[in-house]
């Protein structure tokens, strides 16, 4: 046994009391700050629910066709979504889709600028990298407790937990993509007198785009991986069905909802990947190079 050298009790009490104090005094502020997230999530959800089922199927199939120019992926999209409709999972899958989309959009808004700053400054990278490691490895329940205490159970903590878990790969891949831009292309831009912003928007971001898109793909996948946990604290959707399946020992409910998550994952994974590939071919980086 490791000897008891210091007494940790005061530290624990200090931490727990500190959180209680934060909840009591700053809770409203936090809630106000997170309100736009809630509005976005609700808007997306209402929007997707307002569109008729065939509209969503058609839109996703069209996206799939645009990305691959082949019939295979659109067919998979149609079959998968019709399966969900038949299994009475339509509304739940739309809610899950809304959660995933909101998390991805928020992650894009925050992660890409952070990734760009990281690529330009070694100091920022040194600071941000361990934070990203922490976000990805810390078990989500640990930060779910304080977020639920601050916001109360509901969609906001669910969305925040999803964002925390899903955002890091996008930051990392944005950073990587920008740093991987060939130095000789950048040097040429500089030699022709391009300003830093002309270099960023005209050279670095376009050339990093395939890598950034791979990051978006990762983010959507990780957001979907969080839906069951998110449903524990009040996000509805397919995760909630899985949870209920476990609670009621209803294997069928769990299996079908689980398959529904898999279907969503396949659809969004393949579509974003295909767009990434298309971009890469356009740039001429196809394959490993």
């Amino acid at each position, binding site marked *: 046994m490791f000897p008891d050298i210091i007494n940790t009790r005061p530290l624990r009490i200090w931490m727990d009391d500190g959180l209680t104090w934060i909840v009591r005094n700053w809770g409203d502020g936090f809630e106000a700050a997170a309100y736009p997230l809630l509005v976005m999530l609700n808007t997306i959800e209402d929007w997707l629910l307002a569109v008729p089922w065939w509209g969503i199927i058609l839109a996703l199939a069209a996206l799939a066709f645009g990305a691959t120019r082949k019939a295979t992926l659109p067919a998979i999209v149609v079959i998968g979504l019709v399966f969900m409709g038949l299994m009475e999972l339509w509304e739940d899958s739309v809610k899950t889709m809304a959660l995933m989309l909101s998390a991805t959009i928020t992650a894009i808004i925050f992660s890409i600028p952070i990734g760009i700053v990281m690529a330009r400054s070694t100091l920022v990278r040194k600071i941000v990298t361990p934070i990203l490691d922490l976000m990805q490895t810390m078990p989500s329940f640990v930060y779910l407790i304080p977020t639920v205490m601050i916001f109360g159970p509901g969609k906001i903590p669910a969305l925040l937990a999803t964002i925390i878990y899903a955002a890091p790969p996008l930051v990392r891949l944005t950073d990587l993509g920008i740093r991987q831009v*060939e130095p*000789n*292309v950048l*040097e*040429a*831009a*500089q*030699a*022709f*007198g*391009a*300003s830093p912003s*002309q270099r960023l928007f*005209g*050279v670095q971001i*376009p*050339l990093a785009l395939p890598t950034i898109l791979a990051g978006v793909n990762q983010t959507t996948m990780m957001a979907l991986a969080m839906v069951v946990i998110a449903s524990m604290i009040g996000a509805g959707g397919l995760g909630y069905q899985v949870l209920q399946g476990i609670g009621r020992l209803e294997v069928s409910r769990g299996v079908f909802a689980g398959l529904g998550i898999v279907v969503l994952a396949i659809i969004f994974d393949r579509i974003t990947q295909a767009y990434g590939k298309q971009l890469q071919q*356009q*740039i*001429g*980086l196809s394959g490993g190079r």
Partner: protein
Amino acid sequence: MDNQYKIEMRGVTKIFGPHPDEVLAQLKQGRSKDELQAETGHVIGLNNVDLKVEPGQLHVVMGLSGSGKSTLIRHVNRLIDPTAGEIFVDGENVLEMSLEELRTFRRTKIAMVFQKFGLLPHRSVIENVAYGLEIRGVDKKTRLKTAEEWIATVGLEGYEQSRPHQLSGGQQQRVGLARALAMDVDILLMDEAFSALDPLIRSGMQDELIVLQKKLNKTILFITHDFDEALKIGDQVTVLQDGAVIQYGRPEEIVLNPANAHVEKFVADVNRARAIHVHTIMEKGAFDQCDVAVRANACCEDVLPLFAEHDWVGVNGDGGKQVGRITAKQVIKALARHSSGV
């Protein structure tokens, strides 16, 4: 005051490392480059380089890899800042420019062609050629029209909408050249522009560059590691070794009188018969009219066949008057001279 030179470098020294100034002080005290590099871990890229390029000149800087030639060319448009020295382009002190002035200078005064092309892979050929003009702020219609003309000049009609990766290396470098020429500036920097191309295409591009240069009369600073290339296209050649200028002059002066063993090695593989002009080795004076004569800028290669029939070949000056004569012996002597390894 410096208007007679398009590009002038005075005592330019570049030291790479965390404390360049300390190393510079020691270098100035006369310590050797190797000693300092081993001791301090700093790399001395350029050591007190002087360079003068006259308007309309095609000036070749030659050296092996690691000699500092790519570092040197990057000082002219300040892609690299020197540790010490002065750089003037068109009489303007490049080192005194603010960032904004420097950007304007790069947009309007100077263009560059790169060994690895440096094309934007996500843009079509025509958008690549128009890139410099776009950065300069030229409106879309004008810049695309200009780009189209230059694409035609370098012989890439029909490839306007292709992407760089769809083109061969030679074609990609034509795009790079067109991009630089489209800027319509006086000064062109070419960093091993043809080194990545295979020999036949390289030779073709050299010919084209010579033709273009006659037509456009630009001032070109050309970097190469290939002495034959330097001979073929250069008006003046500067030889760089370990970051320092070891010889400077007309190409054939260097072939005839290499400054040290290093340059001699360079020159050893050169085709002398093509490099040496007859007027530099002829007997000067008004002799009896010879049966055949060549122009003064003819090479040894041109006169050799004539010796099958004649003992003496006359050399005519610009006016067509004979200014000297030459024998097979003299030619053989010139060709054999400096041949090391005997």
